[in-house]
């Protein structure tokens, strides 16, 4: 799921940039994370940032690959910073943690803003038939919140693994833990658990009777399973299609009519 969210997030950020949405806070925060990320992971993030900022529309396999491993990169960095041995490394780890916190905050602000725009202009946009822009704002804010949750979770997962290996394992094992890609046989308690959840247990019939059999009595396959998360199946156009001629500056029009319940929510003291 992380790889898919990384790719979608990258395309969404690219789209927002092309629509002249102010993403300086996110770009600065990403730059800060990149500068403080442990060697050699910062090189991957630097390249990612470079490709993100080029602003080109369309898909690039390199950008997709980097976007796909974005959260795994954060997990690896979390692992390395949590394994810091010297005082100097611990200071660097602290600076990295603060930079990651700023990135989380910057992304949250974008999600809040998209959400605010969707609520503030819902009535008027619906009346004008701006379904696509509303849909993109709603899916966009939800996606960014998913990404924020994932950043925190991956950083924590890296730290937890470092702690588990640090108390139970050897230096050699901790190095081996990151030779494999997530979902593979990476070793370590967290990875083992995640891998077993991702592989065998994902069978739709893991819980007897959980998903009903088809009418002819055959067990259902993956095609008959509900998706785990909306980001797995969402068509990226639902996220990126803001509609013909969409402009954030005109969309954010303070003259739009508001419903009374929206006024209550946005301006409780009015």
């Amino acid at each position: 799921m992380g790889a898919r969210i990384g790719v979608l997030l990258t395309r969404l950020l690219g789209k927002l940039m092309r629509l002249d949405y102010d993403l300086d806070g996110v770009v600065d925060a990403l730059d800060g994370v990149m500068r403080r990320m442990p060697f050699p992971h910062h090189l991957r993030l630097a390249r990612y940032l470079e490709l993100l900022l080029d602003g080109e529309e369309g898909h690039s396999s390199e950008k997709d690959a980097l976007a796909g491993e974005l959260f795994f990169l954060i997990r690896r960095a979390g692992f390395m910073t949590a394994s810091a041995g010297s005082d100097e490394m611990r200071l660097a780890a602290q600076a990295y943690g603060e930079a990651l916190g700023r990135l989380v905050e910057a992304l949250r602000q974008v999600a809040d803003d998209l959400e605010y725009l969707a609520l503030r202009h819902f009535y008027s946009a619906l009346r004008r038939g701006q379904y696509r822009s509303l849909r993109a704002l709603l899916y966009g804010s939800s996606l960014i919140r998913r990404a924020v949750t994932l950043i925190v979770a991956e950083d924590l997962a890296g730290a937890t693994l470092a702690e588990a290996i640090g108390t139970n394992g050897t230096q050699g094992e901790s190095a081996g833990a990151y030779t494999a890609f997530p979902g593979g046989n990476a070793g370590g308690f967290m990875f083992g658990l995640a891998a077993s959840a991702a592989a065998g247990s994902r069978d739709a019939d893991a819980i007897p009777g959980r998903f009903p059999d088809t009418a002819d009595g055959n067990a259902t396959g993956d095609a008959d399973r509900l998706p785990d998360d909306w980001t797995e199946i969402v068509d990226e156009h639902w996220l990126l299609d803001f509609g013909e001629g969409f402009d954030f500056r005109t969309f954010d029009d303070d003259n739009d009519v508001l419903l009374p319940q929206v006024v209550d929510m946005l301006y409780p003291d009015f």
Partner: protein
Amino acid sequence: MAIRKKNLDHDRLLAAGLPEERADGPAGGNRAGNSCPDPDGDGLQNPGGLPSMPHWIWVCMQACPDRELQVGEVFVLMLDRLAEYGLPARKVAAAMRRLGEAGGIGGLREAGELLGRDKGDAGHERLWKLAAEIPGRIAEAAPCEPAFSRFRSGFGDLTSRFHRVLLDKHPKFFERYGWPEQVHLGGMVASAEWLDRMNRWLRHPDPALLDELPVFRRKEAVLLFDWDGDAVWMMQQYWNEEWKSIMGVE
């Protein structure tokens, strides 16, 4: 701008006759005559003792084919979902049946009849066979007045009702830590767009213009129709059970 959490006036919504959270689960299940298991015999679909499976999820995942759906199939799913949501979609189905009768178009009459009642497995199977042809049959029946006008205005009323529900409910999706999430509102907005475009097509029902209507894959239909977060909730329960099983917890 921070958005504060606020309780909505649910009584007002209910007084307006709008659909709200369903305390006793959706209509359907075995009462609808389909094959979804009902282990505790309460008439709702809750295999494995987990929360009831809404009928619309059963239809999307079990009854409808696993591929990109055609316009007529989305039309059928949409009417089924709107009926389950408590909106007068069955009136539209009845108008479609009468349109079929007026035009002497058996497929349209039968599809309208099936859409207007609990179908069961056999009914669903038959409906999916008829579904792809429905827009073409509607275009064929367009000259049959006044039946066509009644059908069109019924569909227009349904769209208006859905818009009203959408406008009334949308603040709920923005409550901080609220449920459902904004993404479910996104599904409602996408559904509203589809209904709007179908309405426009009914004003000029030319089969050549059908390509302009968006179509979806089956799993995307689940995303589109998950207006209350039912599918997400079911998957959370599923993974809770999975993790319990992995950790060896009863």
